[in-house]
């Protein structure tokens, strides 16, 4: 379905994840973050860029992988994106929600 995020027409799925990564820009990321009550800091951006790179490389994202990323550890990841960190961070990054259980 189509919605308007940060003044742009964006296609999202029923959970609010972007279906076309090319429609994403930083303003869109900021708007989705604000919706989740998160103000993005440089640390958030480092993690978001990392997630986008992993997604571009077609890597399945898990919390274990995040912990071994050398970008952020699991504890900080939970602090940056409290409540469902991987789900929230991927949504902000404009990439699909990870499908795994770990």
């Amino acid at each position, binding site marked *: 379905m189509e919605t308007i995020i940060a003044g742009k027409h964006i296609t999202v799925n029923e959970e609010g994840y972007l279906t076309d990564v090319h429609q994403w820009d930083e303003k869109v990321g900021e708007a989705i973050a604000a919706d989740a009550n998160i103000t993005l800091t440089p640390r958030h951006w480092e993690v978001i860029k990392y997630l986008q790179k992993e997604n571009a490389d077609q890597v*399945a994202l*898990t*919390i*274990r*992988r995040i*912990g071994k990323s050398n970008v952020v*550890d*699991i*504890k900080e990841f*939970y602090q940056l994106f*409290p*409540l*469902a*960190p*991987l*789900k929230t961070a991927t949504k902000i990054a404009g990439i699909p929600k990870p499908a*795994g*259980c*770990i």
Partner: protein
Amino acid sequence: MNDPKETIKKMMIILSKGTLENVYAAFVLANGARMEGIEAEMFFTFFGLEAIHKKRLQSLHVATVGNPSMHMPTMLGGLPGMEALASHMMKKEMEKIDMPDIPEFLDILTASGVKLWACKLAMDMFHYTKEDLFDGVDAVITVGGFYKKSAGEGVHMLFI
């Protein structure tokens, strides 16, 4: 946002078994809760204590005897080395799907904010002390103490 009355706020997971498959089930459920923004606490009792016992957690096994799901005759499952072999194979498969091993999983759980409690009664029974346990264990508590932590709306309890 969902109606707060319709959401799960916290999962209280009791682990009473020390076989690999049960420990993994409990760990995946606890981690999965945190990943969904749900709080999680674990209570380790009886053989579940093996999962947080510093020395024993390194060598948890799957049960090959008395476990029909293994599709292995009980007599065969009892042969020397069978349990180790089955456990080795299972661990290999786990690694393939990016499942952490038990020590790493415990680190992930504590980093994710899962509270780990050890059952006092079972600790006394096995003559374990807090020093025998994984450092991330929060405390040794009684059943009553665990129930107190479980109070409140939206809290669910699981026994494994």
